């Protein structure tokens, strides 16, 4: 089973994303900020990461840059999922190594379409 780490400081968002991704056949782990997410990845790299931008302790962009510098950190497919919805943020995310980008609010169709886009 493929694994997806859902990184978001909102418990509600994590729950919604978990439900959608479990329906798509993923096993889900959750983290509430970038630091927690990094600890998860160091223990076991997931196949995919759904990543919020603005979080306490460590934000999504800083996490992504650190992840890509980790051994094996280029492997997970990273999909941003954030309220930041302007071209500048999207370009910054792609340059930092994101594979896809979801602008909140999202629904099951968008998640499914974006995961299909990256081949998952």
């Amino acid at each position: 089973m493929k694994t997806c780490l859902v990184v978001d400081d909102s418990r509600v968002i994590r729950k919604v994303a978990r439900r959608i991704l479990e329906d798509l056949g993923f096993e889900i782990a959750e983290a509430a900020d970038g630091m927690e997410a990094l600890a998860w990845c160091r223990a076991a790299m997931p196949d995919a990461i759904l990543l919020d931008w603005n979080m306490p302790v460590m934000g999504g962009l800083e996490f992504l840059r650190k992840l890509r510098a980790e051994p094996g950190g280029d492997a997970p497919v990273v999909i941003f999922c954030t309220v930041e919805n302007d071209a500048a943020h999207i370009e910054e995310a792609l340059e930092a190594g994101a594979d896809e980008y979801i602008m909140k609010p999202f629904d099951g169709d968008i998640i499914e379409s974006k995961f299909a886009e990256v081949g998952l």
Partner: protein
Amino acid sequence: MRPDDISLVISLCRARAGLKVSAEKTYLIESRLAPVARRENFASIPDLLAAIRTRREEPLIWGVVEAMTQGESAFFRDRAPFDAFRNEIYPALSRARGGEPVRVWSAACAGGQEIYSLAMVVEMMRAEDPSVRVELAASDISARALEKAQSGLYSQFEVQRGLPIRLLIKHFEKTDDMWRLSPKIRRMVRWRRLNLIAGLGAVGRWDVVFCRNVLSGLEAPYQKKVLEDLTLALPEDGVLVLGAKETAEAAGDAFSPMAGQPGFYRRNPAFRAAAAA
């Protein structure tokens, strides 16, 4: 809704557009017609339909029919047909045309997502090979749909249905809450209002016709008619692309499926549509 209101909607849609509307789907009829009633300043859907009964005004009738023709639309819907066009269909047709442009028509283009997806594909192909020549056209029965398509304006929701983020960044610009497709891509498409059941005698010749998820919404006799008329628009080696769950069976042997390309059909050269005889 009253049964006579429902049957009025069904008969208008059938007569004007060949559209199949199910009497059981009251919720669908209501959700499509409520905005029309509001727009035309009626207090309710029954008021709108009563006015149509007494006044028989064409703009009101078409408002109803157009609203009922709206379908789901997404960029790169089903994905595979776009890859097949790029990798198989275009190269073969382009060779056969000796470098003349390959002409592609999106019939019933709705909000324009399909034809613009093709335009973005063509732009990618040209970046690799500047000799690529494709003419793109799109038609729809609905003036409102065409207006939306031509504007190239899509909501945040719409640009997240099937459009890869890199193509969004490359070809769209954010304006307020909407995303606007670049003039460069928009200028690649020619537009036309067209009712498919009204005969295709004047549409000209098209090498590839995308007519996906259109036929399945039509009453059976019109499925047959549109398919037979399409044989007149396609050259012998032309290609018809239907939706993932559709077939060309309604027109007997007018079309045959292409091996290894689900949804792609070739015209049967032996078939002659009645109109051509």
